[in-house]
């Protein structure tokens, strides 16, 4: 079976390369080429109806990467129920990625970062806005646009320190008493989130 593997691989590569002339590029290229053979055969079958639109005709082409690094980072910070920041031009954001606090400047390498519970700060000149983010993702694009999505993000002033302490104590105790894997995981999550909130309030 594996003897055929190289033949199968080379066959699929050859087929791919022969189609490369008509292969679709990334969406950085403007998707304006309409397949004319399809449109002609459609018109033969249904001359009174417009040919169907494809999703790519509704898409705006992805903005091209500027050749020089832009001076500002454009941030879109969205929550499921509200758009916190939309197209805001800032100098830097620091996001709580699972790999640690990540500072994002204009011209950052395109990255997808998973966020852990922690503080996200948006720096604009001398203003710093801090939010506590429960979890989410940050998509950093090549054109210095940062899309940050979180399930829950609150300004630090809205967090009640006494409830954080209570929750931390409760979950630490639950972690010690947990028996099943799932209970342990839930208690561990509780401990992590509350410690992060604690650190955010005191740090």
């Amino acid at each position, binding site marked *: 079976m594996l003897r055929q593997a190289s033949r199968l691989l080379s066959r699929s590569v050859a087929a791919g390369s022969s189609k490369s002339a008509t292969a679709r590029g990334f969406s950085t290229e403007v998707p304006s080429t309409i397949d004319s053979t399809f449109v002609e055969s459609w018109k033969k079958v249904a001359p009174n109806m417009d040919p169907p639109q494809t999703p790519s005709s509704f898409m705006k082409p992805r903005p091209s990467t500027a050749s020089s690094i832009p001076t500002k980072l454009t941030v879109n910070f969205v929550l499921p*129920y509200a758009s916190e920041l939309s197209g805001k031009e800032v100098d830097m954001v620091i996001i709580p990625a699972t790999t640690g606090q990540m500072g994002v400047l204009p011209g950052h390498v395109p990255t997808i970062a998973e966020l852990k*519970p922690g503080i996200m700060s948006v720096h604009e000149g001398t203003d710093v806005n801090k939010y*506590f983010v*429960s*979890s*989410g993702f940050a998509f950093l694009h090549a054109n210095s646009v940062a899309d940050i999505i979180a*399930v*829950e993000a*609150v300004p630090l*002033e*809205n*967090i*009640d320190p006494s*409830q*954080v302490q209570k*929750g931390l104590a409760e979950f630490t105790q639950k972690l010690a008493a947990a028996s099943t*894997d*799932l209970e*342990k*995981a*839930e208690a*561990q*999550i*509780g401990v992590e*989130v*509350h410690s992060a*909130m604690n650190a955010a309030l005191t740090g």
Partner: protein
Amino acid sequence: MASSAAVPFWRAAGMTYITYSNICANLVRNCLKEPFKAEALSREKVHFSISKWADGKPEKPILRSDTPGV
């Protein structure tokens, strides 16, 4: 083949990312100061009814609601 990536502890315990993320969000919401906490909890209330179907007909629906008495 052994798994190469280190899985997060919640995935190892059988939890999905969405469950993990929702638990984190709920914990944060529970630690908010008062008017924000009431707003956040009311925003997240759900109210829906589920019916299982058998033989092409819906059976008695189950009502799940966070607003009591509905």
